[in-house]
């Protein structure tokens, strides 16, 4: 008892420190007390708390709480159960304060547990490390050697000296090389015990510090120390390989050179194990642990004067023509030299911080996972790819922030913070403080004089990411490029938003999803740029002329230079059309055998260390398709800016006068239906500025765009996918009609005319084209409401008749007063069992069609009454009828209004949804899935993009939709959508971050009110839970899709047959798998849009006598796109009966077949025959699935409801042949082919 009490006391005291710290932190933010003062405070706090605890170990609660806790704890003396309970209360209360929520903490705990290193593995590798230490100790010292002597020493050896470029020559090298015993120590995460399990293995960094006597004072200049190190490394490698042989370790140990963090100036030796061949592997074989060991050769601390290696100094002296031009700074070189001398220093620094901060390691692990999932590492990012910010940089930043970091050196993080608070603090700092343009962070890593000064944010930026260590003069972020930094910042901002999200659980988005696995999902546009290789190619000569010695010392390698140049060119050319640009040198290697000097062996040539360049872009949807790239204003004397602009764009540049009278330099581009403007710009500038022979592949984007049906409209092939004018024309035509109908005198006045058709929300598969009346979406639904009246009949048939009477009046008025409007009536079958609905179809003089239906306040009651009155076995049918009615008449209004409203903020939503619908129809699913459901699924990547960004291209949005479906486990997870516009600036949400109990301004409040609140969200979740309680496997309803418009989540997704739902998931899974394994190319994209007809039980090919493609308003790709199609109708027929001649008969055929066979078969077909019906639009297929239940024999019953044949005198089986005959008879001359099994 006593010991538990003590433990409890110590626990609570720790917690109280944490709380005290927290309190101080909030306090400090405003008053800025110094760190020392703070320490005292917390010290005091600790003392007082401890003394209090001596009296009462339940302290830390308010007196009232104590009482309750005591009450709760009272029976403890009797039983153990309550003891744990009060302990739980404690944890629960504490986590509520220290973590985002309890569940978040528990999730973090689980995650940390998951990624823990296996103790067994650590012991195993440690055993080898000891052995390695002994071996390294045995390497004999050397004597001073000249370069010539070194060369001859290695001449007949296996090992080569990994000299960095430029290789030293004996004539000019008058310094000596040597080997003396190094000082060996472990550095990095393994040493800090912050390593985690990684499936691809992780590396253990072992530092071998060269003794100081090997260097002279000025060795930091001109690669001297680097060359010395290369020889040192080679000598070590040579002896190590001999020693391994001697100790019989060479059979499984492998040695390889590598560049540390991809830094070409820092070759290291990598030791790894091969798979053991026999059953009893050597005790030193650590293959199973998946570790590899890096031998990093370091320089002694303070070997060189740090000041001379500041980022703005030049340390590579080259011959220059005139003395006036100062040599360029060599930041990369300086960093490489300086950081090689500071490894141990940082280890100590981090170790000390770790000791002071309880949750430091946990936060480090969180940071590491977060970075890994986003593709960040400590690797150099100068030759492309994300990098320069890995776990090391994260921990150093965290350590710096624990010691200040604010503008007044105020502490950003406190030692008592929980892992979550530490992590969030760093993320918030990254998201909100600019370390590149506006300022930088200074800190002191000096362990001894830690009291000297705190980290401080300085409002002065160096145009490069800067986290500057005053003690060592190292800029920790040197390896990071500006573009890399910008993306990191954006991710941090996004993560901060997720952490602040109290409504949805964002844990897996933050830590578990790897967003860097598939470029096309992560970036909006990807271009593969082939740079022609070969001896006499233009690029190299042109590059060689620009890549002079000045550039060489600055950028070190040609790859760095090229990456820098391409990034700059693209950035300048695309301006605000894009948000971020990222370069990757695909096929870049950093490992090479110990027999080689460097990565690539083709000596002599300027060959690149990569296969091709991948240009990855995140698009700014609001600006990406603007026609004009505006440059500087025109002036009499040409400004430098204008000169740069003109020379950059060359022939593309021109002078233009704008409406406001200003004259500016600019470039004009033309839009196209098949490629974004960005593609043409990239093509142009890369050829102009990088190489004439640069091949930019943009086929993928084109291919996706071409899957969107091209409307038969003037210059449609020159219209951007973002252009919605075809929809606006339809809306305009509706507005005119709206005014007319409103003015008509009727017994009841019109209350509202609400458009609900998919074209009003820009999501109809085909764009609206005048007179294209074969398009299934041609007649756009409109709901007409009259002022309330008690006189509507209280019986549904009569009610419908009364509605029709009103429509007849409207029709009459139109016929007499507006002869240019045509109208007619059709029966509507959208509501099952209500056969009396009649709609008024109006054709406008502009060539559009609208279908008017009447809604009264009585409808809903009547449908509900029908459910109540029906006998039980019919109730489900009637409920379905009610859902259909609600979906069509009530929710459609909200749905249309909502989507139309927010889609203006999600520019790519319309084309992405239309492409998604095309995909669904290609796979014959659109007949089963309502338009609304497809639209809601496809808006998911827009309104809830995390952990990705909002899609900025058609392909990206479409792939994200597929990705989402492939991962959606609808059995367990609802899809809850918050259909609001994106948050334009994150400032507002930042207010509510940790510690800051700031007031919410009215704007934030307003936005908050639009978003789903926690209780609404919980309510929807509860609906889902209840639904799944009654239908645990989702056999009746699979897709629960809810939003504010429909909290029930079942409105649009009920009635989908289970095999169809699983097929959708399966198809998406196959598609995503295909793309992830084979990448995006012409074949894979074509496969994506090829229906798998083999999976069905039977397939029936249909052909209609009339091709419907022209009358659906679609242009064929082969036709001359600018000439409008002759066959396409350009007016409505005089006799409206003739309209039906160009309607799709297959739709009706399938509808009736489905009605007949719905109990035993699932029949699918294409809805958009004009889009998917072959070249003429006269083809369709019916595919049939026999429900599993009907594949077996059944006992003969009266109510079996399927076409059967007897097996014996008791049992029957489905009579497939007879069914085929029935279908053949029903389809008659339209059926051209039957495929059965």
């Amino acid at each position, binding site marked *: 008892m006593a010991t538990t009490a003590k433990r409890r006391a110590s626990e609570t005291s720790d917690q109280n420190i944490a709380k005290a710290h927290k309190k101080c932190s909030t306090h400090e933010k405003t008053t800025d007390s110094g760190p020392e003062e703070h320490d005292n405070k917390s010290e005091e706090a600790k003392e007082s708390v401890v003394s209090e605890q001596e009296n009462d170990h339940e302290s830390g609660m308010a007196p009232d709480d104590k009482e309750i806790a005591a009450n709760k704890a009272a029976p403890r003396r009797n039983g153990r159960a309550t003891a744990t309970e009060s302990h739980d209360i404690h944890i629960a209360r504490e986590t509520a304060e220290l973590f985002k929520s309890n569940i978040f903490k528990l999730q973090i705990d689980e995650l940390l*547990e998951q990624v823990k290193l296996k103790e067994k593995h650590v012991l195993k590798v440690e055993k080898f490390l000891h052995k390695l230490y002994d071996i390294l100790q045995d390497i004999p010292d050397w004597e001073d050697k000249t370069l010539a002597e070194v060369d001859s020493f290695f001449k007949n050896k296996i090992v080569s000296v990994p000299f960095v470029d430029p290789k030293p020559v004996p004539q000019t090298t008058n310094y000596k090389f040597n080997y003396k015993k190094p000082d060996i120590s472990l550095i990095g995460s393994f040493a800090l015990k912050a390593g985690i399990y*990684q499936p691809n293995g992780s590396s253990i960094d072992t530092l071998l510090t060269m003794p100081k006597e090997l260097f002279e004072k000025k060795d930091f200049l001109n690669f001297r120390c680097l060359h010395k190190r290369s020889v040192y490394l080679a000598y070590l490698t040579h002896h190590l390989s001999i020693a391994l042989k001697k100790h019989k370790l060479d059979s499984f140990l492998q040695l390889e050179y590598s560049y540390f963090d991809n830094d070409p100036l820092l070759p290291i030796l990598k030791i790894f194990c091969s798979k053991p061949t026999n059953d009893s592997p050597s005790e030193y074989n650590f293959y199973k642990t998946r570790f590899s060991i890096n031998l990093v050769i370091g320089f002694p601390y303070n070997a060189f004067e740090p000041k001379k290696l500041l980022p703005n100094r030049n340390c590579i002296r080259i011959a220059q023509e005139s003395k006036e031009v100062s040599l360029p700074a060599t930041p990369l070189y300086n960093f490489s030299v300086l950081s090689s001398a500071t490894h141990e220093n940082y280890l100590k620094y981090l170790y000390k911080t770790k000791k002071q901060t309880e949750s430091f390691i946990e936060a480090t692990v969180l940071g590491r996972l977060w970075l890994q999932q986003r593709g960040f590492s400590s690797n150099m990012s100068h030759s492309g790819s994300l990098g320069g910010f890995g776990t090391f940089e994260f921990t150093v930043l965290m350590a710096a922030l624990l010691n200040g970091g604010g503008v007044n050196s105020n502490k950003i993080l406190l030692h008592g913070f929980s892992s979550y608070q530490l992590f969030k603090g760093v993320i918030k700092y990254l998201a909100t403080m600019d370390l590149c343009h506006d300022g930088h962070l200074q800190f002191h890593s000096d362990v001894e004089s830690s009291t000297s000064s705190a980290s401080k944010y300085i409002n002065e930026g160096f145009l490069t990411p800067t986290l500057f260590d005053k003690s060592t003069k190292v800029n920790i972020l040197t390896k990071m490029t500006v573009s890399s930094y910008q993306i990191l910042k954006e991710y941090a901002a996004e993560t901060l938003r997720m952490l602040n999200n109290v409504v949805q659980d964002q844990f897996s988005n933050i830590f578990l999803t790897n967003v860097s696995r598939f470029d096309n999902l992560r970036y909006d546009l990807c271009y593969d740029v082939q740079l022609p290789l070969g001896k006499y190619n233009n690029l190299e000569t042109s590059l060689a002329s620009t890549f002079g010695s000045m550039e060489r010392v600055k950028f070190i390698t040609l790859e760095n230079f090229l990456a820098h140049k391409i990034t700059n060119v693209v950035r300048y050319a695309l301006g605000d059309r894009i948000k971020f640009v990222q370069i990757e040198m695909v096929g870049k290697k950093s490992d090479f055998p110990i027999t080689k000097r460097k990565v690539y062996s083709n000596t002599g040539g300027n060959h690149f260390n990569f296969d091709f360049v991948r240009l990855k872009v995140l698009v700014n949807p609001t600006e990406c398709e603007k026609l004009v790239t505006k440059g500087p204003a025109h002036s009499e004397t040409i400004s430098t800016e204008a000169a740069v602009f003109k020379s950059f764009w060359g022939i593309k540049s021109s002078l233009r006068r704008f409406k406001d009278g200003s004259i500016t330099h600019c470039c004009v581009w033309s839009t196209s239906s098949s490629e974004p403007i960005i593609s043409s710009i990239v093509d142009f500038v890369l050829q102009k500025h990088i190489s004439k022979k640069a091949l930019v592949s943009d086929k993928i984007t084109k291919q996706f765009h071409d899957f969107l049906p091209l409307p038969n409209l003037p210059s449609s092939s020159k219209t951007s996918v973002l252009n919605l004018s075809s929809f606006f024309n339809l809306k305009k035509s509706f507005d005119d009609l709206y005014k007319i109908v409103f003015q008509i005198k009727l017994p009841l006045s019109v209350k509202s005319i609400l458009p609900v058709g998919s074209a009003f929300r820009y999501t109809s598969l085909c764009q609206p084209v005048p007179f294209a009346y074969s398009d299934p979406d041609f007649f756009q639904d409109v709901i007409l409401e009259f002022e309330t009246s008690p006189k509507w009949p*209280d019986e549904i048939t009569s009610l419908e008749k009364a509605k029709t009477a009103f429509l007849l009046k409207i029709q009459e008025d139109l016929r007499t007063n507006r002869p240019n409007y045509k109208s007619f009536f059709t029966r509507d079958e959208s509501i099952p069992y209500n056969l009396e609905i009649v709609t008024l179809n109006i054709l406008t003089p502009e060539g559009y069609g609208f279908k008017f239906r009447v809604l009264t306040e009585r409808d809903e009651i009547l449908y509900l*009454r029908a459910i109540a009155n029906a006998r039980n076995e019919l109730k489900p049918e*009637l409920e379905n009828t009610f859902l259909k009615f609600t979906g069509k008449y009530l929710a459609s209004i909200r749905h249309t209004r909502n989507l139309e409203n927010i889609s203006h903020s999600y520019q790519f939503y319309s084309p992405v949804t239309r492409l998604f619908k095309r995909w669904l129809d290609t796979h014959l699913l659109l007949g089963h899935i309502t338009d609304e459901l497809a639209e809601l699924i496809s808006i998911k990547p827009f309104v809830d993009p995390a952990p990705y960004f909002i899609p900025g291209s058609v392909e990206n949005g479409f792939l994200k939709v597929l990705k989402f479906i492939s991962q959606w486990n609808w059995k367990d997870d609802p899809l809850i959508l918050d259909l609001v516009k994106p948050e334009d600036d994150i400032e507002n949400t930042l207010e509510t971050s940790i510690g800051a109990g700031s007031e919410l301004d009215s704007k934030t409040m307003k936005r908050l009110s639009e978003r789903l609140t926690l209780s609404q969200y919980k309510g929807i979740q509860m609906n889902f839970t209840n639904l799944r309680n009654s239908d645990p496997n989702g056999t009746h309803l699979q897709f629960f899709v809810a939003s504010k418009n429909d909290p029930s989540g*079942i409105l649009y997704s009920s009635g989908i047959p289970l095999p169809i739902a699983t097929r959708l998931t399966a198809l998406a899974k196959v598609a995503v798998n295909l793309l992830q394994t084979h990448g995006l190319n012409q074949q894979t994209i074509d496969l994506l849009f090829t229906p798998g007809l083999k999976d069905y039980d039977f397939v029936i090919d249909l052909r209609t006598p009339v091709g419907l493609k022209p009358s659906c308003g679609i242009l064929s790709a082969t036709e001359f796109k600018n000439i409008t199609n002759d066959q396409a109708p350009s007016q409505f027929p005089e006799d409206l009966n003739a309209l039906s001649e160009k309607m799709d008969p297959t739709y*009706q055929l399938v509808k009736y077949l489905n009605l007949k066979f719905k109990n035993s078969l699932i029949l699918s077909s294409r809805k958009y025959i004009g889009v998917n019906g072959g070249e003429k639009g006269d083809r369709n297929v019916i595919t049939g699935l026999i429900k599993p239940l009907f594949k077996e024999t059944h006992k003969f019953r009266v109510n*079996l409801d399927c076409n059967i044949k007897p097996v014996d005198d008791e049992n029957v089986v489905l009579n497939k042949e*007879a069914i085929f005959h029935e279908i053949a008879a029903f389809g008659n001359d339209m059926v051209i082919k039957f495929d059965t099994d």
Partner: protein
Amino acid sequence: MGIEDISTMKNGFIVVPFRLPDYKALPKTDEAPLHYMFAKRHQSANASECDCLFLINLPLLSNIEHMKKFVGQLCGKYDTVSHVEELLYNDEFGLHEVDLSALTSDLMSSTDVNEKRYTPRNTALLKFVDTASITNCWNALRKYSSLHAKHPEQLFEWTYTTPSFTTFINFYKPLDIDYLKEDIHTHMAIFEQREVQAREDIQSSIVDEDGFTLVVGKNTKSLNSIRKKILNKNPLSKHENRSKPISNIDKKAKKDFYRFQVRERKKLEINQLLSKFKEDQERIKVMKAKRKFNPYT
């Protein structure tokens, strides 16, 4: 026992096979496919359903004409006489399975909803003019059924009604306006007449078993709204948790007046916190079991 030997099912249904016409789109099969209809004499107390054959699995788009033709053929073959009157309850596409009108009001239907007659999907009743007819037909059917085993070539070939291309596009044809007007006019006239009747019925006082008179407002058209509770039947809120409305007394009462109230509230809060915590722990366990914490999947 082969399929052709089955002429009667165990529960008394006669198997009535038909040969089927060829279609060139259909793949050729070795055996000529047959359609099987099942028939049994219908027994019912209902007068309108006497002299009926209960039929299961009628061929596609069958109507009374088809049945007449078939019975004619059958009688011709076996030299007997039988007359068919009508085909009842044949609702091939299930369009009339639900009578919304009757379910929303009893104004327009003559019979009570619960007494509406129907047969299961894919079945129908074939009504004969008299008992002799059905007996003759029944006997002929028995003979015909056994034909399958001995002389399959003599089985009748069923002729489907095949809709043409025009049939399907006719669904898109505009409704004739004059017809529509006429239809609405007649229907509304009947409706109004019945409504007036219903209103009069209501206004003439209704006295229930206990002797109370039901008072009805003068605007009430029918008893639908009074008689039938439709609350809580909305399928959309089926899965919602319903919360009790707060009563007026609860609203006014102070909740933090007594010390015990504060204590109780705090106790409740802590208990809630604890149960939430426990719940979360359970959730984590479930998630863990599903391997939801692997960052490397």
